[in-house]
């Protein structure tokens, strides 16, 4: 058992208060998408809704409704339309109210 005590002392503290410092590995985490309204058309929005396996996306008239709480950051929307969806880089998603996680994105893109 002394072996483990010495080992623990030698290694020191590896846990820290959050966030003690920026963590480079956070950049590797999959994150929910960020949509570009200027290229989102109704057709494109419908395609994105169709590929979302966790039903985080829905159409409401001229809005794309994105429920971040249901998003699993699977990346299917980004693969479907990389011009319209990119990684947000945002993984600290906790809020005090559920409605803060629902984003309404105007479909400002022009149909081609």
């Amino acid at each position, binding site marked *: *058992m002394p*072996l*483990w*005590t010495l*080992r*623990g002392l030698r*290694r020191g503290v*590896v846990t820290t208060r959050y966030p003690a410092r920026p963590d480079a*590995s956070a950049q*590797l*985490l*999959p994150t929910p998408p960020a949509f570009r309204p200027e290229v989102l058309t109704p057709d494109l929005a419908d395609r994105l809704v169709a590929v979302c*396996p*966790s039903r985080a996306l829905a159409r409401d008239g001229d809005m794309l409704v994105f429920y971040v709480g249901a998003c*699993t950051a*699977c*990346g*299917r929307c980004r*693969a479907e339309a990389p011009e319209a969806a990119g990684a947000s880089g945002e993984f600290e998603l906790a809020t005090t109210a559920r409605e803060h996680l629902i984003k309404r994105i105007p479909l400002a893109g022009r149909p081609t």
Partner: protein
Amino acid sequence: MTAIQPSVASRPGLSDLLTGFGQDAAGDGPVITLGVPVADLEAAVRRIAAYPGARLADVFASAGSPAGDGNSARDGSPAGDGSPVTLRLVWGLDADHRYLITESLVEGDSYPSLSAIAPAAFAEECEIYEQFGIRPAGGRPLNRVALPPGAGPDWPRLGRAPAEPPRDVHAPHHVGGHAFEFPFGPVRQVAVESLYYGLVTSGEELVDLYLFTWHKHRGVEWRMRGMAPGEALFYVERTEGLGAVGNSWAFAAAVEAALGLEPPQQAMAARAIALELERLYNHAAATAALCQSTGLVIGQAAAEIALERLLRVNAAVFGHRYLFGVVDIGGTRADLDAAALRSDLPGAYAELERAADALLTTNSFLDRLEATGILTEEAARRLGLVGPVARATGLAADTRADHPARPYGEFPLAVAVADTGDVLARFRVMLTEAAESVRLIGEIGRTAAGPGLALPPGAGPGQPASSGLGWAESSRGEALAWVALDGSGRITRARLRPAAVRNWRGFDDACRSQNVFTDIPIIEASFWLTVAGTAR
């Protein structure tokens, strides 16, 4: 892994076995399918079970006839009373490098009892009764497996509801003296999966144990019906998060076998690297869990540092800590960062090695593992156990060696085995396998590995219905999947059989072997199973 393999020579014994079923040759493929009339099923099971090296790997049913598997109007949709059910038994003929599937059409309400011959089939007999309403002959009580008490005929099922609900059967134990049942679960600790233990004890010694997993059942197989395979893959990956690569490889291989797809070589190499990374982090997690269960907090921290570093390697190499999104139908989807693999993996694995070396010289730790939770090789064979749990009993079964898919056939594998069957043996097998995984990653990583997809044939009304079996050696052992697709390429029946499905049935045997209450967490950590994998 994939069912598309080069020709494998048959042993004379296999020819004899098949001749007995009126089939002249085994063919070239790694999967042999036999039609067996239900009247002959009992004799067939006896004959196959007696064949050297044969093990019952899975039993499942589909609504409709075998030929109707791809017919969405019949198979995969709830059948009415009296509709036939196809019963499939999947056997691993490991020495022959083949799988054998028997198909039997059951037109009545019962079929010959399989568990009377192959005890490992009891869990599936219960499941089939719950989902399809047919039962083995003999009237043996059948347990509740998936659906909660009070589940009526309108609950989602793969077939028709049973005439009577399954019993809330506790393990069929007979306890004399002052033994009593101690209920534990399904909520056990924070962030631990739902699992109900029925512990039968005389005070401290464990007399018997039974498990209920239906609290967590999610109906994944039911949910997958009618989906395109690519759509269903999302569910397969999440069926058992700690086995995402193994299960999704097995499922993708089943679809590829059904569609005749052959993934590019570099994609198969990338899959293998991901699978070995999954094995590494799971074995590190099991090491940490063993330390936690024995109260060795600093050892737990050391193993968890290694675990965290390995998860970061996963993220750096494939973009996801738990390797989701790597496997796709027809190949792999995720990019592979070979430079990150070369630079980060050695340090992360060295962290695990250092922790393991220290643990293997800590007598107070080893004393808790030694002679705890013993399983015999006979029990492992009888119950059809797989993975490190089986290998720790001396059973050298590993689908990477027995049913090698690309690229494993090109890289000889040293299968890790031990012979004492206790927790220490399972721990040693995991450590040896972790070293072997690092060696394999190094060798496979020197070949071209990366994303690539074989495109599926154009789906349409003219396409024939098809089915396929796939497999992979996940960190917990052999993962199997079977799918039937209709002419439009949509799933009519998907069967997922993660390794956890097999190995939970060995857990109570291991716990009963001269163990006390405090041994149970240690045994559970050494099995390193998931409830999600079995309550899918």
